[in-house]
């Protein structure tokens, strides 16, 4: 039997057809792998006891429970405050790309969004869903009810790529739409106009929103695994170019690394979290980023 931690691996998680189960398994796997409670010191309510396990911080031992039962228990907490989260997913054509024919960037983003939704609903945080391509698309208003999860998952399963991306415009619309301070988790390949996109994100940040940018790229877009002569075609614009892979690979990797570094620098300066991902990376990195951001509130 596959350990639940294994479901953090996208290729394994993708084998679970039902998105809700997939989200559940991912989150459980994630939580299972957390040896030390990331919630310590968090402003959360106590929810239950659990048996002390090796690796838990002894400070979390409930000595009263120990006095009563003679066994070690640690306290589990629930968030005291509600954090309204928006999952913003890019539906541009470029997101429907996979080189290995296993998991497109959109699939990866959906799975990640589902996992995050599951996690947030579990914490009774209101979570909503927004999709966009050149403009904002369908959206699910944020709710913290347990019924919110099926609603979001239902929307996620129906997501289809649309057209080109105009991320800046979509973010601007999102900024205009949001009235309360929220946590916006943007999942996109960011293949758009860099400058305007960064400006829009900064504007959104200045409006008081927390932003996590999950920069989702296909594994091939990071590693450039091609060989020989290849004709590369942009699915959004239809533009193409023939390159000799050996010539282009090294420079391309450096370019991608420099772009990621630049995004990281620019966004960090604006106190926006930037999480570079590719479709081969496990989900825990993204989930951890969310929890760290949650703790910062």
């Amino acid at each position, binding site marked *: 039997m596959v350990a639940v931690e294994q479901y953090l691996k996208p290729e394994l998680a993708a084998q679970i057809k039902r998105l809700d189960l997939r989200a559940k398994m991912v989150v459980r796997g994630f939580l299972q792998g957390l040896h030390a409670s990331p919630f310590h010191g968090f402003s959360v309510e106590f929810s239950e006891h659990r048996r002390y396990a090796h690796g838990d911080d002894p400070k979390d031992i409930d000595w009263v429970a120990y006095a009563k039962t003679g066994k070690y228990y640690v306290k589990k907490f629930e968030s005291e405050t509600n954090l309204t989260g928006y999952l913003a997913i890019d539906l541009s054509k470029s997101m429907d*790309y996979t080189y290995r024919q296993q998991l497109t960037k959109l699939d990866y983003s959906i799975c990640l969004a589902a996992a995050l939704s599951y996690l947030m609903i579990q914490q009774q945080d209101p979570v909503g869903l927004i999709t966009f391509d050149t403009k904002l698309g369908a959206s699910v208003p944020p709710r913290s009810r347990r019924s919110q999860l099926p609603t979001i998952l239902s929307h996620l399963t129906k997501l289809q790529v649309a057209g080109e991306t105009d991320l800046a415009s979509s973010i601007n619309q999102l900024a205009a739409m949001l009235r309360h301070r929220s946590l916006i988790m943007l999942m996109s390949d960011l*293949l758009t106009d860099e400058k305007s996109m960064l400006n829009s994100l900064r504007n959104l940040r200045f409006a008081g929103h927390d932003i996590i940018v999950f920069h989702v790229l296909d594994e*091939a877009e990071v590693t450039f695994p091609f060989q020989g002569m290849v004709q*590369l075609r942009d*699915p959004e614009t239809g533009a193409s170019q023939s390159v*000799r892979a050996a010539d282009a690979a090294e420079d391309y990797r450096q370019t991608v690394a420099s772009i990621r570094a630049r995004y990281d620098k620019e966004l960090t300066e604006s106190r926006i979290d930037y999480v570079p991902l590719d479709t081969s990376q496990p989900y825990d990195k993204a989930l951890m980023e969310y929890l760290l951001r949650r703790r910062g509130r």
Partner: protein
Amino acid sequence: MSFLHLSVLAGLAVLSVPVILHLYGQREPQLVDFPALRFVRQTTQEKASSWRLRHFLLMLLRILLLAAIVLAVARPRVHSAMLGGIIGISLVGVCAFLASIVALVAIVTNRSRGARLVASLTALLLWCITLWWGAATIAGGPSMPNTDQGSPVAAAIIFDNGPTMQYRFNNKLRMEAAQEMGEWILEQLPIESQVGIISGVPINALSLDPASAKKQLKLTQAGAARVDLLSRLRIALELVQKSELERKEIYILTDLSAVSWSGTPSELSEILTEYPDEVLVQIIDLGSVDSSNWQLGDLTCDLESVTVGTDARIQVPVVCPAGGSETENVTVELLQEEQDPRLPIIRNEKLETPQQHVVDRKVVSLQPGASSVVELTSKPLEEGTHHFEIRMSKADPLTLDNTRYLTVLANRPQPTLIVADDADLARNLQFIVNINAADNDDSAVQIIRYSQLNQVQFSLYPVICLCDPPGLSAEISAQLDQQVENGSGLLVILGSGIRSAQSIAGNPLTDLLPSKNLQLKQYPSEDTATILQVVAPSHSIFRMLGQADVPWVDFPIQRAWDLEPLVEDTQVLCRLSRDATPVLIVQQRQRGQIVTLTTPIPAPLETDSTVWNMLWSGRDPWPAWALLTGVFRTLSGTQTGHVNYLAGEPISLNNPTTKWPSRYDLFSPPAQYRRVESSAGWLGLGTVEQPGNYRLRGQLGGPVLRGFSVNASLADSQLQRIEKTQLNELLGANNFRIATNRDDVESSVGQARFGRELFPLLMLFVAGLFLAEQFMSNRFYQLKF
């Protein structure tokens, strides 16, 4: 330029393959969706241009590689003279190609305008130079001869069979090496070739096929006489030019001895320059550069003909070769042959000759490079022909000049009648006639006065001398005339005995003279310009005078009888230098001859102080003595012509049939025999090349032995080699080739006949292109695993 396999050039069609592959055969790149194309574009924009350029260059390299391979297989050849130019053009072409690549790169990669301009102009300039140079070389260069290796050749093989070709090196004579080389050359010639062997034998056309020429080649022998290779080359040129065959080749097999190349060039250089491309002149050097040779020089003998009982004195120079470091002793021996009437004879293909005995021996010490004259003396000689051999104890590679040969005649003095009224004159003449006789032995010479003439029986005297005759009676004149016609010799010395021209007119004496008219000519005593001038120096009378410069100018003539006009059948041997007055005249009268001297020698002691000439004056009147001796010997028949010759000289012996047989067996060294016959009193034997003693054996009431000797001239056997610069002057620098062995000949002839192969150069080019192609294609198709 020409190609050995012209048809292979059709293979140049394969050059289209890389072009077609480049244009149409490129594999379509795999189409891959790639949303992050914008990142690719940022990095590969420049590389794509570079890639296209490199692809083009790769195609260009492949085209050049295929072209070079096809050209190499077609085996292009150029004339040797063009090879340097072709290499130069190739280098400039490579530079132009590289400059073009640089220019192309500069243009494609959009370098600065200045860089592009400079690179383009440089490439253009280099291409212009390449094209101009190439066109000029091909247009102005010599054309290639017929390319078909199997086409027949008009070949003349010139043999240097001079004395130095008998030099032995590596246990082989140069001549043998030349024959082997000649045979090898003939084996290389196509069967239909026309060949001529030029080795001194007259030849009119290249009429031999290689096989027949090979047989003739084996018969060629080295001689002892110098050869004139320049004349032979001229003959060879005429012969090959006459041939209709396109390929014309002349091979000269020589040791490059300076003697053999010392003939008159006679514009040979200009003639060769006219058709250097049509006729291959290939000199094959068979002489070793380092050589050492002891030499016996040319013999000097006091007399070839001596009186019986005297000995012969022989001087011979000995030459030590330079290059040694120590003084060396050498023994020189004189071997005298016995007189044996039964020999020579050829028995069992061997020449049996009379036994030789060493009669004198000298030892000399010589420093390296020095020479010394050795004098050897024979035993007293009996009547007949005596053969000698002078040998040197040193052995060296050239044996030809280690032995010299000599023939000396020993004659009994012929009974001579001297008629003179002046006793002193008579004694002088007696001394001249019988110089070797003992003082009291004057039996051979009878001296009488003119008043005693009617008491003499003329038939007892083969030679009669009338010294300063005052006139003769008709009876005496008729008797003398009859005696001359019977074969006697008569010498008439005119002087002051004839008082005047009028006094002698009509005298029967004039019947014995070459003219009826006599006129006294006088010249001023202070005039030293009136001297004797020999006009027929080859006559046997002058043999003793030899070729030396005779100082006649020291012996002026003041008076002489002018005998003009001369009757028929007379030959003037000497004239006066001032007015060509005949002084010495010979008349042939049937079997005898009359010699007339128009000024007296020896001059009579005149009481009236009239001086006729100064020929018998001074301390050493040897020319007059030699002249009179020659006259007496000629008249007595003992002056039979030379008996010692140099190789190559025409041999002619006086052979009056009254005294000698008309037919002889000639025994030549080493063991040859042939029958010879005399004609018109002379025995003409042509020229001979082999040094040695030659013996003649005839029959005239018993065996008659005669003979002569032949030697190689010291000058002809010198081993000095001709320098390349001298050859260049003689033949023209670019008109001939020199080789020393078969490989050289093959290479040299191959280059001339078939030009220089560009195959190695092209293969080098192919290798370079192959490496470049590999390097570039690896850059394209390197795979990572």
